[in-house]
């Protein structure tokens, strides 16, 4: 009986392992659509999260396209922001793609 339970557990763990392997195997070169690969990621700012995936994998941006220059922005409340290996992001860079009417829109028309 113990043997059967052990075998069942082993089988389950192998099965779940293969599912994880399929998820993590998603890459830009995979046959699945890029958007699906991006959506599968966690919504977080971590380097491996969805936020970075959209900008690097989908939009093909280099790290330095966004990072750098943020430390020169004095009028920024979160002064202890994580610097990142390429320096903090200047939000002015975000305006290039996220200011109305471009979508997704995070910023209104400059006044």
């Amino acid at each position, binding site marked *: 009986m113990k043997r059967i339970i052990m075998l069942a557990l082993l089988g389950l763990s192998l099965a779940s392992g293969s599912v994880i392997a399929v998820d993590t195997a998603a890459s830009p070169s995979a046959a699945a659509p890029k958007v699906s690969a991006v959506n599968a990621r966690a919504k977080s*700012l971590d380097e491996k999260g969805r936020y970075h995936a959209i900008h690097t994998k989908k939009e093909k941006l280099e790290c330095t396209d966004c990072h750098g220059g943020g430390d020169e922005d004095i009028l920024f409340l979160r002064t202890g922001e994580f610097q990142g290996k390429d320096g903090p992001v200047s*939000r002015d860079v975000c305006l290039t793609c996220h200011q109305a009417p471009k979508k997704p829109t995070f910023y*209104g028309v*400059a*006044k």
Partner: protein
Amino acid sequence: MKLGRLIDLKRCMGCRSCVSACAVENYFTPEAPWNVMVEYEVGIYPKVKKVFNTMGCMHCEQPSCKAACDSVGAKAISKNAFGAVIIDYNKCIGCGYCAAVCPYGVPQLNKQVAQLAPGKEKLGAENIDYADRHPTHRKKAKVAEKCTFCAHKIDQAVADGKVDRIGKDQAYTPSCDLVCPTQARMFGDIDDSNSDISKRIRATGAKQLKTQFGTSPQVYYVLEEGAKS
């Protein structure tokens, strides 16, 4: 009614009373401040000046944090009836997108809920039981938080039927605006052109910061000569 704030940098002497008052009132932790004092120098020697620029949430009319939050489907950020931008801790998924897009660096992703003064007596709202606190004070770890325009006081004004006393009575005015020893801060209805704050904004030519982002902040600054905007 649209609430707003005026901060006069020509009067501010950088004492940080507003920062302390906010910390005690809202027990923000040093790792996740709701109000900070930024300071820098302007001018050319020997004519130099120090600028003290206190910053909190700008409670933008078109908040980029809300747009980002909506874009991920969390919809944890909303504008209340008074124009204050409020985060619902129960809906926040802690993704940090609001923090990533805010041009002012306002939303704070709090890693842990810590006591303001560890090992010492509890301060302000820390003494209130969790369930009895205002929703903006029922803090949680790994969610975003920020200045609320002291929403607990504004809600109290509504409950007491004294909305007209917001910005006038101590009980209905954000603590940071109450404690300023140089009267560099003012809070009130910026929709009413006859309100004290509207008059002072007009008289001083106060400006919003970082208008290139088009978020229409509801916090105005009287800028020192040469100050950054």
